[in-house]
């Protein structure tokens, strides 16, 4: 990739995709790298859950945490959610009381703009990580 010029009021931008593909192949992301990239998305989801959870005692807010289920150089699986026993009642309502209000905060954290924000964070972390590898 080359960006040059300016003297003629034009910047020339050249990008060789073959070269980019080669560099991506050679980036050799480690499990730690993949984890850090994936965790950028986890952090956004966790933050949104903590923002949206109904707060009374703050116990459920404090309990929101993540558990990394799988962490390899090609795969990162993280589970993010609250730990209090009554959190499902906040999220889904109570079967015995049909009119008990639902106050969802887990499903919305991975929906719509929140989902897009998490994906954008992952993309940005991926870009930073790959660029970091290129410079070495």
């Amino acid at each position, binding site marked *: 990739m080359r960006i040059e010029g300016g003297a003629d009021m034009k910047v020339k931008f050249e990008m060789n995709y073959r070269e980019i593909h080669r560099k991506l192949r050679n980036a050799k992301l480690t499990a730690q790298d993949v984890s850090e990239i994936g965790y950028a998305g986890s952090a956004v989801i966790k933050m949104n859950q903590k923002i949206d959870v109904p707060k009374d005692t703050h116990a459920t807010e404090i309990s929101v945490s993540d558990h990394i289920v799988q962490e390899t150089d090609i795969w990162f699986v993280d589970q993010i959610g609250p730990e209090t026993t009554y959190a499902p009642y906040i999220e*889904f*309502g109570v*079967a*015995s*009381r*049909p*009119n008990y209000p*639902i106050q*969802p905060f887990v*499903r*919305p954290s991975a*929906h*719509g*703009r929140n989902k897009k924000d998490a994906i954008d964070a992952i993309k940005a972390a991926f870009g930073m990580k790959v660029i970091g590898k290129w410079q070495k």
Partner: protein
Amino acid sequence: MAEITSNLRTFLLADSGISTAFGTRIYVIKAPDTQTYPFAIIRKVAPTANYMYDGRWGNDDLVQIDVYDDDLSSCVTNAQLIEAELDGYAGTMGSITNTASWITQAPTEEWSLDARHFRSRIDVNIKWTV
């Protein structure tokens, strides 16, 4: 401003199989305190409005539908009627246009010891425009 839940109710009740099973007992947010089984409640989980420079162009809503019944087999059957009606549907939905819908949580039943009834929970994602 159009919204999803009342239009979803209208759409579901327009289906003969669903209206035969539920009568008109599909409610939005809240059911009457005294109730005949089966009945269902529709609630918004995650409404999302999408905007372009010229304004709102679409909506992407996650909706929860709870089906209640005192009989497990009819609870399952009636929840499946709703699931079949919504999964993959695109078209008119009351006064709005459903551009895509899919089930994100297939019907999941649970028994309530206190209330002596079953609940089947369904989540559906609906993309729609006015």
